[in-house]
């Protein structure tokens, strides 16, 4: 068997939404297509972590939802552990898939039922997925709470969400995602709702657990510094397409696409001696319903030439670990 087998393989994946033109006439004849994700391809090897980055509306959350089969793709192929996921539709198969692929939510204050104790919230996935005895389930709950460092466990079991802090709640959200022993985890902005001083704790914990459990992870975030800290590989998305991807260090140290360059230059630097430059990108993100021809970035790109307005650049390798979709790589 091939050693570098990929857990996740995505080929030309698409998700288009039909949006009605008129809010009050749902059946309006004039319906438009919003291309939230438009033909993206990437692979994630077993145990690796991938960061999906980009501005709001670039399709990163939609991609995450497709990876978890919460959205059915409009086009393209998605292989999970070498199984074509379009063949997973029987109730039993979907249940099995859900057990292996889990989601960690962004807002811990809304992700847990306020009327559930910690014990009950963590039992929920076991009630659905686990056939063991009550004792076994209780043991698993205690085990996972230890794992996310909510100790001593007995102090937390009977607590309600409102009695816990944001950082503790996010650990519960993580614990709940991990309790079915998944092999794949999607974390959508896992710390954006937390205070800075406790973010680091949750991130370090996630890193440690992902390593211990050999989890394959996808982090969705607009924060490049977070992705750099957490991920082996990075995918930069813009308007539903991938503009640049590769090893995180390589892409961030040596960005080639003008959009990636702008994104990186725009991150404020904590050092007062280094002043951020003004970003040269003008205009605004065009509407995803009415995309321009050629390169999607042409109307904002500082180096666009005639070809960019006609032909869409294909994503191509500049080396083994780095791919860019731009006509002007040099």
């Amino acid at each position, binding site marked *: 068997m091939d050693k570098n087998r990929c857990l996740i393989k995505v080929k030309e994946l698409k998700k288009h939404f039909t949006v009605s033109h008129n809010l009050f006439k749902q059946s309006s004849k004039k319906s438009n297509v919003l291309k939230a994700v438009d033909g993206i391809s990437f692979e994630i090897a077993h145990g690796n972590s991938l960061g999906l980055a980009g*501005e*709001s509306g670039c399709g990163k959350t939609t991609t995450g939802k497709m990876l978890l089969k919460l959205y059915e793709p409009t086009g393209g192929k998605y292989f999970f552990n070498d199984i074509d996921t379009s063949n997973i539709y029987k109730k039993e198969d979907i249940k099995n898939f859900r057990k292996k692929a889990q989601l960690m939510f962004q807002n811990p204050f809304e992700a847990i039922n306020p009327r559930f104790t910690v014990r009950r919230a963590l039992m929920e996935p076991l009630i659905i997925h686990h056939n063991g005895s009550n004792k076994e389930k209780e043991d698993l709950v205690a085990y996972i709470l230890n794992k996310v460092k909510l100790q001593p466990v007995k102090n937390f079991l009977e607590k309600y969400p409102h009695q816990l*802090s944001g*950082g503790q709640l996010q650990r519960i959200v993580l614990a709940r995602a991990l309790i079915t022993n998944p092999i794949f985890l999607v974390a959508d902005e896992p710390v954006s709702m937390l*205070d*800075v*001083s*406790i*973010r*680091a*704790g*949750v*991130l*370090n914990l996630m890193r440690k657990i992902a390593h211990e459990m050999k989890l394959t992870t996808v982090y969705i975030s*607009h*924060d*490049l*510094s*977070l992705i*750099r*800290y957490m991920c082996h590989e990075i995918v930069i998305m813009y308007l539903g397409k991938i503009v640049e991807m590769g090893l995180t*260090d390589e892409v*961030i140290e040596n960005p080639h696409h003008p959009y990636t360059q*702008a*994104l*990186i*230059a*725009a*991150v*404020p*630097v*904590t*050092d*007062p*001696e280094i*002043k*951020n430059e*003004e*970003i040269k*990108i003008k205009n*605004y*993100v065009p509407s995803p319903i009415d995309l321009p021809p050629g390169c999607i970035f042409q109307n904002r790109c500082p180096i666009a030439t005639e070809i960019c307005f006609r032909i869409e650049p294909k994503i191509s390798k500049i080396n083994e670990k780095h791919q860019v979709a731009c006509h002007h790589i040099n």
Partner: protein
Amino acid sequence: MALLKIEDLKIYYRSSAGITQAVDGISFKLEEGQSLGLVGESGCGKTTVARGIIRVMDKNAFIAGGKVIFNGKDLFGFSEDQMRCMRWKDLSLIPQAAMNSLNPVYPVIDAFNEILILKGGMDTDSAKKRAKELFLMVGLDLKRLYHYPHEFSGGMKQRAIIALALALNPKLIIADEPVTALDVIVQNQVLMELKKLREKLRVSLIMITHDISVVAQTCDIIAVMYAGKIVEKGTVFDILKNAAHPYTLGLENAFPNLKNANKSLISIEGSPPDLINPPNGCRFAPRCPFQIKDCRQEEPKLIEVNPGHYSACFMMSEIENIRKKAKETETWIKIDA
């Protein structure tokens, strides 16, 4: 003379559970044309300070003591009517989530008219002229004036709000998390715009944010707040290059750095204290790895470590040692709370 001087300001909230000491005796000064970054975690009282200065507080909040002296006048001596005359003209507030503060059923120009005509006493024509001037100043297309807020993107709304805050040439602008909800590129553009305008118009700014890097890029001085108190204040260089309080050092450890892949993040264990029954002594002591006995009994005062650089910590004599130790992960791992 300083433009704004805050002395021992205390703002408390009443609730059924008791009295929350949200802001508990803070003092700072702001010179004309200067910009101050008020930094801290959520719940540390930074928004309460902003709303207290301009006196648009929640109903259950009350001023428990202290003075706000603006341009030589004690604002707490002012009646509500007098305060209303000051707002927009002398000091204006860019509220948190400013993007949602434009009225959705009126075109944006109506918001400008309201302020320019009602507050500024202009006639319709000069108000229109001024609104156009302001729009150009913040880099918005003039035809946008007649658009409704929903036709604006987040960054454009933020620019419009900044233009609005500048409408009557205030001396001081208080911006509460002005870029938090924006994407990085737009954030960069808005911050640059704000910086340019501030230099051009010589307006003072108080920037409230939890993001140290935003402050590093836009402010002259920083005050770090923790649990209703200022724990450290000084110039941007003092605080970010030469921090002298364990909390500030801890915050710096917790920030991921895009340019430095090898830095490992360290969090501050525990969470901020309950402000209804704040602990005795230093409020950071329960989370502080460098605490000594005194910290739990007596409250440290702000002492000058270097000219203009103040820190509220008993361990100042050992600050070199603390700075070194604060960089190590083991230091922060286990503290008995």
